[in-house]
């Protein structure tokens, strides 16, 4: 089963300079240009807003998208390598998506799978065999023709964990890794050992690399050491929309269009629209904001922090940038307790700290309105489980949503504590403003029902060591858990009791509770089912069980805002990072000011 792109299905964003890859997303929410006053200012923003939900075939595009010009984007950490097979952080992934293509691509705006190197595919009736037809006449940026051999090579390399691949997990489907064969140079067959509902979705995780360049490295198990950052740009060959022109360590990467890129738009013109794409390293988020306001960069690769909304709104009102409200995001920060059996042996609090009632009381005691107002400055919606309303396909509205009731919460706590003082520590990562504000809100809200919370801020690695080290030593923790795909079947490491991101009690050999066993069984069933209706029913049942026991508490999911300079003439915003750059071949800048002012 498949943590997408080498990342866990759910994982901890422990660093305040983000390195996490939030991949994929589900249904796209209507993109609203904010307020008529400034939405009307530029056609560009309207174009972006209305085009969302466009059909998934990349060939169908509105005509008249401007071509040429240069786009400047910022990242906060440098890529680690040009070899996506050995590292999965957000910057390395971004660069890989500029240089390489994949068989299919999940459209982050619609959540549908669209063809890329594979032109079309069919599924056998038993659901075990997928036959993919590759595009004809595709060549790598060095002119070498692309064939099914490159696909087989790439999947073999992805599976080569001994050689250092981090993508092996990303290809897990149901029982194990699929087998790939190539009956002819333009056909690839994927054979699964058991049915797996997401099917070709997992092929979005593996970039296709040139066999003619890298085969020796795979053969000698030295894949991990090829295509490091010191590789001369000319030695990289890819199928992606761009090629690397220059890399200045710690500063910037410059990409130019790949003249042999194979995708064309509706007008039959070759993509990418852009001539050049510059990726600049700006480690500080405030500096990034200033650069965006000043027009030094055209877009960032992450969403706008709630506290940055106001200055960007002013810049948008002045016509300098476009600010988009993409609606509620897919992920909410989460709070959980250490539910490992025996974790509190010898602790007087053992009688109540792992009880369901404590968590039920907490979820009733948090005023989600106050939470949203303080943490997200009002830009958030209440949530009660890991799936937010943004994930329309999988969100179960019927799962119970306890109302705010501090009196009932207090009574519930008293019923389990039996007069003992109720006090626990809450670990939060240091340095993320929204999380630190949330810690303060949780403490204040619980104080009202007589519960004392000691909020302890630790640096990322120290915190992870306590929460997910060999012997977890913590009472409770609060931070970010990101789902890697909107399709729950791709997130088994969170849901299954044996999962590596089953944060409250990880990697269990046998389920510790009957309800976890129940979730395991329902999960396996829904991942293998080929009936979408049945999958939804099963997953709704899982969410109901989850809500009854609240192993992880969710309070508010933030709205996602993104901003780009008003030069940007065409983007298709998605809800996950990089929101505006998941399809770099289809981003365009307006020709009027394509030549940017010299600085």
């Amino acid at each position: 089963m498949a943590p997408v792109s080498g990342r866990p299905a759910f994982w901890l964003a422990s660093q305040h300079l983000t390195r996490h890859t939030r991949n994929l997303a589900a249904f796209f929410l209507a993109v609203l240009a904010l307020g008529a006053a400034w939405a009307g200012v530029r056609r560009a923003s309207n174009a972006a807003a209305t085009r969302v939900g466009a059909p998934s075939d990349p060939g169908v595009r509105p005509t008249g998208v401007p071509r040429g010009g240069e786009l400047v984007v910022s990242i906060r950490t440098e890529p680690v390598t040009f070899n996506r097979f050995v590292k999965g952080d957000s910057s390395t992934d971004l660069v890989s998506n500029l240089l390489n293509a994949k068989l299919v691509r999940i459209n982050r705006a619609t959540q549908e799978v669209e063809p890329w190197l594979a032109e079309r595919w069919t599924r056998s009736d038993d659901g075990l065999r997928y036959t993919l037809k590759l595009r004809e006449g595709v060549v790598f940026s060095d002119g070498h023709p692309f064939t099914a051999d490159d696909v087989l090579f790439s999947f073999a390399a992805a599976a080569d964990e001994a050689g250092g691949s981090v993508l092996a997990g990303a290809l897990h489907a149901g029982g194990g890794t699929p087998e790939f064969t190539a009956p002819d140079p333009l056909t690839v067959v994927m054979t699964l050992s058991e049915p797996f509902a997401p099917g070709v979705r997992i092929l979005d995780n593996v970039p296709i690399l040139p066999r003619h360049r890298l085969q020796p490295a795979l053969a000698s198990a030295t894949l991990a050491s090829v295509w490091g950052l010191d590789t001369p740009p000319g030695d990289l060959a890819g199928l992606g929309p761009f090629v690397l022109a220059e890399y200045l360590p710690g500063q910037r990467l410059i990409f130019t269009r790949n003249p042999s890129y194979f995708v064309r738009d509706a007008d039959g013109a070759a993509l990418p629209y852009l001539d050049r794409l510059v990726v600049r390293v700006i480690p500080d988020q405030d500096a990034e904001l200033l650069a965006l306001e000043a027009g030094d960069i055209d877009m960032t690769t992450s969403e706008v922090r709630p506290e940055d909304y106001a200055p960007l709104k002013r810049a948008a009102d002045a016509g300098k940038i476009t600010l988009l409200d993409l609606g509620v995001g897919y992920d909410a920060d989460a709070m959980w307790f250490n539910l490992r059996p025996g974790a509190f042996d010898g602790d007087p609090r053992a009688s109540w700290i792992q009880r369901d009632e404590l968590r039920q009381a907490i979820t009733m005691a948090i005023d989600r309105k106050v939470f949203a107002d303080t943490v997200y400055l009002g830009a958030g919606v209440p949530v009660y489980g890991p799936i937010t309303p943004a994930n329309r396909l999988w969100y179960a509205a019927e799962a119970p949503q306890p109302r705010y009731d501090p009196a009932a919460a207090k009574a519930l706590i008293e019923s389990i504590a039996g007069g003992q003082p109720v006090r626990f520590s809450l670990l939060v990562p240091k340095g993320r403003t929204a999380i630190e504000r949330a810690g303060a809100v949780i403490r204040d809200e619980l104080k009202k029902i007589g519960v004392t919370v000691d909020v302890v801020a630790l640096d990322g690695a120290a915190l992870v060591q306590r929460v997910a080290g060999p012997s977890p030593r913590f009472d409770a923790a609060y931070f970010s858990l990101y789902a890697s795909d909107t399709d729950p079947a791709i997130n088994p490491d969170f849901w299954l009791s044996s999962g590596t991101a089953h944060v409250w009690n990880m990697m269990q050999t046998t389920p510790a509770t009957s309800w976890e066993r129940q979730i395991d069984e329902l999960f396996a069933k829904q991942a293998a089912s080929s009936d979408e209706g049945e999958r939804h029913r099963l997953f709704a049942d899982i969410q109901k069980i989850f809500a009854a026991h609240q192993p992880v508490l969710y309070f508010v999911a933030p709205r996602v805002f993104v901003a780009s300079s008003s030069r940007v003439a065409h983007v298709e915003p998605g809800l996950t990072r990089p929101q505006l750059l998941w399809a770099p071949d289809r981003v365009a800048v307006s020709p009027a000011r394509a030549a940017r002012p010299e600085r």
Partner: protein
Amino acid sequence: MTTRRVGAALVLLAAAAAFAAPALAPHALDQRFVALLNAPPTVPRLVDDRGAWHLPFIHPWRLVNQLEQTYEQDRSTRVRLVWFANRRLVSSSDEARAPLLLLGSDSLGRDVFSRLVYGARTSLGLAAVASLGAILLGGTLGATAGYAGGIVDDLLMRASDFVLVLPAMYVALGLRSALPLVLDAWTVFAFLAAIFAVIGTPYVARGVRAIVRTEARLDYASAAAALGAGHARVLVRHLLPAARGFLVVEATTLVPAFIVAEATLSYVGLGFPDGVSSWGTMLHEASSIRAFTDFPWLLSPAAAMFVVVLGLNLAFQHRPPLSQA
């Protein structure tokens, strides 16, 4: 000599404010006004819009936009200030509707002024103890090294080099993991003061050593030694006074540096617990673009630090006799 008095007055003022924090602060440290995040200061007034005079009053803030954090003054409402109520010098007569926010509120809706005066206790106390420690330790080591010379000098100076370049953050990280998860304020204070004193020592030691070294070669020192004065006496009576000016300047650079460094060490978990405020942490939270554009009152700890450092500078400066000439 009046500038010296002004300086001393400034320092004393800060110390008095810190001492009297519970009476001066209109609010408890962690009291949050949920509807007033990043609200501007409520300035006490005497005259209303129609030009009529009143006892001191404030206008409440009304939230205009939560997401943009903008407020407007409700000028039709006057809320009187009350004096000496609840053992507080001054507070608003209607706390629920219009809390007295002399320096506005922070991103969690806490009163900046209250946090500032309470923070003076933490930050000034910490900076004073740590600077004193660094000066005593550095002065002793530097003087010993400079006076003794030879192998003692080499050893001490190499040790100080080691302390200088060893990443202090790692020492703090290691210490933190050895300590219990929940720390009380005094433990944090003691550890921070100790770490800062050690970190500050090489800076002091090096300067003192250089000064003592040159002075020791001057005639009067050799003369004193020839007259049979003991080493300690030569050092303390004749050589160290030459370093006095240097030590004063060092103190005025160490104090602000330590106040700020406290926030840095909170990154590795050695921060003060919730119930304690400090200038360093407040400044760290205020380090955002919006503090310059929209919420300048968040920068008030920097202003407070300026006052204290200026006071120190004026109070301890060495006025040369010629300047009066």
